[in-house]
């Protein structure tokens, strides 16, 4: 007995069932890129559902061939041009607050990742309790190619991947398929897309917020996908050796040493990707993931908010604007990074990305207070 309570033009479609709420990201032409409006709406809905005793779980999915391709960066850049960096900061403040709410949510969130899930799309799914991958899933955190860095709490969830896989995924923007997502833990379940309607129906009948019960319901439709032959997941030893190095420069030279040892297309491609990315982005991303390893999710988001404000202000580097120009606006795919080389960036410059923003009205991210809820253990462990 489901009743539709939203019009087809809404950016977030809401479907209410007896126990579950199904939220559908509805900007299929933009691959469901998150607009400020969508983020605000999601925040509003999630807050309301937490208080509503009739809601036991929240399902999040995307319309069309993407779950969500990320934050609507083009809109953010236009806002900054029109209204200064603070317009951008507002967007991220809202987005990170939503990420934190999801990470500390007292009811299970099931995200159905049947398609592209990138950047901000990971922010609204990876922090939730369950992530269901399919044969259509394509994961990436491609920010370093845009002059940004893996944000939306990525320094929390990437840093917790096995070995140094998180550094690899975060620095190179490597794409993973559903089987790989499941193998490394980014996804909690793998369900063939044909069975998704059955999973949804079963979940809607579940009168429970108990993660063990929810998990066992999804389990009934799960399949064990096999990793493709050329999967990067079989390269974990090389990834560990190289991406555990102290600096980006050392990671690159470690990769170059590996190439000499074994003529290998994959390592060569990895080196090329790193060389194309913004040097500043690589450095701040590495630092962010490293620091994230020993921080809770709240501290990770607060730090990333500082970083993203510095990026918006463009005080130390304008790579973000150049990256958006080259990749999203002009689409010449030929960004001119400045500084152009890793060795031109001093550690002290990197330090500044992690410092408070020197601006009178600026404040650190204050994520929503969570103490009034009786948090489940899996949330408490993330704090």
């Amino acid at each position, binding site marked *: 007995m489901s009743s539709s309570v939203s019009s087809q033009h809404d950016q977030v479609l809401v479907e209410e069932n007896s126990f579950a709420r199904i939220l559908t990201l509805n900007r299929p032409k933009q691959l469901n890129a998150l607009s400020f409006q969508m983020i605000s709406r999601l925040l509003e809905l999630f807050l309301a559902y937490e208080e509503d005793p009739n809601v036991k779980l929240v399902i999040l999915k995307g319309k069309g061939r993407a779950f969500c391709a990320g934050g609507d960066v083009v809109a953010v850049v236009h806002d900054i041009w029109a209204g200064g960096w603070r317009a951008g900061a507002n967007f991220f403040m809202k987005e990170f607050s939503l990420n934190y709410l999801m990470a500390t949510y007292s009811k299970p969130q099931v995200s159905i990742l049947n398609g592209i899930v990138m950047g901000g799309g990971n922010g609204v799914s990876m922090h939730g309790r369950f992530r269901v991958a399919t044969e259509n899933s394509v994961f990436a955190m491609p920010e370093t190619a845009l002059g940004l860095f893996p944000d939306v709490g990525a320094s929390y969830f990437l*840093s917790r991947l*096995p*070995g*140094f896989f998180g550094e690899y995924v975060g620095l190179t923007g490597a794409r993973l398929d559903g089987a790989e997502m499941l193998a490394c833990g980014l996804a909690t379940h793998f369900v063939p897309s044909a069975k998704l309607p059955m999973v949804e129906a079963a979940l809607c009948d579940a009168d429970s917020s108990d993660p*063990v019960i929810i998990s066992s319901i999804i389990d009934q439709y799960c399949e064990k996908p096999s990793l493709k032959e050329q999967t990067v997941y079989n390269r974990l030893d090389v990834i*560990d*050796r190289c991406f*555990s*190095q*102290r600096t980006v420069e*050392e990671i690159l030279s470690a990769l170059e040493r590996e190439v000499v040892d074994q003529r290998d297309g994959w390592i060569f491609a990895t080196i090329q990707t790193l060389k194309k990315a913004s040097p500043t982005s690589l450095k701040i991303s590495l*630092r962010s993931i*490293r*620091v994230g*390893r*020993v921080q*809770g999710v709240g501290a990770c988001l607060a730090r990333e908010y500082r970083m993203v404000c510095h990026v918006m202000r463009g005080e130390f580097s304008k790579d973000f604007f150049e990256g958006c120009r080259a990749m999203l606006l002009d689409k010449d795919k030929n960004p001119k990074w400045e500084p152009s080389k890793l060795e031109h960036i001093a550690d002290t410059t990197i330090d500044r990305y992690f410092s408070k923003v020197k601006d009178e009205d600026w404040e650190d991210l204050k994520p929503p207070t*969570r*103490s009034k809820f*009786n*948090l489940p*253990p*899996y949330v*408490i*462990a993330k*704090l």
Partner: protein
Amino acid sequence: MDRAFQRTKVLTGHLLQSPPTSSFQTPSLSSNACLNYSPPELSEKYAFDINDMRKLMDGHDLEERDRLFGMITQSKVFNPRVRGGKVFVSPDYNQSMEQQREMTWKRIEYLFERGVFQGWLTGEGEEVEMRRFACFEVLGLFDHSISIKLGVHFFLWGGAIQFFGTKHHHDKWLRDTENYLIKGCFAMTELGHGSNVRGIETITTYDSNTGEFVINTPCESAQKYWIGGAANHATHTIVFSQLNINGTNQGVHALIAQIRDADGNVCPNIRIADCGHKIGLNGVDNGRIWFDNVRVPRENLLNSVADVSPDGKYLSAIKDPDQRFAAFLAPLTAGRVNIAVNAVYQSKVGLAIAIRYALTRRAFSLKPKEPEVLLLDYPSHQRRLLPLLAKTYAMSFGANYLKMLYVKRTPQSNKIIHVISSSFKATFTWSNMQILQECREACGGQGLKTENRVGHLKAEHDVQSTFEGDNNILMQQVSKALFAEYMAAQKPNKAFKGLGLEHMNKPCPVIPSRLTTTTLRCSQFQMDVLCLRERDLLNRFVAEVSQCQAKGESKEHAFIMSYQLAEDLGKAFSDRAILQTFVEAEATLAACSLKDVLGMLRSLYALNCLEDGAYLRYGYLSVENAATVRREITKICSELRPHALALVSSFGIPDAFLSPIAFNWIDANSWSSAQH
């Protein structure tokens, strides 16, 4: 009769092992009466930036520390285990001694492959040494065995080559050591001689016909004992022995000898036996070594201090055998600095766990139906843990000062380093054992579980009060050094200079007859009152020794007889020196909430020092003032209570290096978590 029936029912339930059914439950036992874990972060507020505090505490190489923390938590080699939804890393101490040794070695290999030890011996400068200290502190937080195993290889074996060797030794050994092509150990202690190194019995002679030294273990008491790395892994060792040249004993010297080949087979003329299972530190393969006419080339004598010519002539730049011997003990200083610093980090682990637990565990309600009281809200629990927290902060500043002293060393500062490192090593390691014991008890039964670390750390670190200088002996050396300083200052136109003894040149501080809160919390008063004790005890010690000497006894005998004053003096010196480092660190900060909290910690540390028996024994404090001090301590404890979480969070120890009771201990112990 009803009772008997009820009891039978309960017992039947136990025996049948069925989950309790609702008919057994009285209304008051319904599920809403269950305890819930609430993370302390949700209720406690931070009044200062814990990152700034961490920077102040750790002092240096924060990024390097975090990288290493990450490297450890990301690898299966470090035995990650999930408890209550969180990952914890810690060795499996339930493994056999042999397995623990093997795992320690695997972990070293893992870190080596990732370049962690790069530059540890081939690099130079303060930065390299500080980074090395930082890595040691991090590794020590994981496990004592791994840091000792590395310490033996890099600091003792590597350090001996650096300090006693000359260029050709450096060229030949340092790079290979850093690259683990060889594995070194350090054979100084013997069954019959530990602290008294000059008495060791191993003998080395020189054969000028072949240009070789010949090393011998002349009797069972001369067997090398406790040699870390010798039982399983080491391929080479530094051998300390009496060097006998043409019938003349030239005293203790150090040479290099190979004890295993590259395949791990023990070399001819070497016998090695295991020291066996120990009360802790079983990841280190301590062994015993006997030398039976072991021949090593002449170049293997570490000859920076003395050399033997090919034709067998003894040559030394240092004529005085006492000074020559002192030069040989230099690498032990680095070890002592490491031990002192490491002890402080262990105290941090213990306190972080015990305080986090005390912020989530409740016991007893004051009134019926009221929630039970948090352990840390009991003034008695505050009084048990918070002065130890203050002491750990004080020791942390002391440790940072000691590290700087060490890396900025000059030939002139050697004496100061020796005295300070001896004093701090003894004080920090003793305090560590006391702190861990209190923390263990503060965690109650949970403290007894190995996975909760606190109790187990006691066994792992007990050895710290004995190795690299027995604590009691080190403290005696401190008192003797202070005696010598006193004597030197009595000469015409001389004054006290160095070791913080300058206060001895000034008039004796006066303690107000009635102490107030304001006075008690003033750093000047705190320094004065600690200086007063040190000054008086030094005067008394000198007087007693001189009196004894005046009766015709030797100075050595006089020192032995004045042991009680010597002990009190050593303690007084350490307490004052530590407070001084605290005050100096505080002075570098601008006024802020962080500084205010540090001020409270400093006051708590200083006032707790006044609880030492010497203050009443020698009458530095009146009985009334002693009672005022005691009251003030409880007051500061209650003022520090709101900062307890922030203060332990500032230690910068990742959650994975603490233990399940520091977090969601209910979930970590749930039935479902026991099922896999």
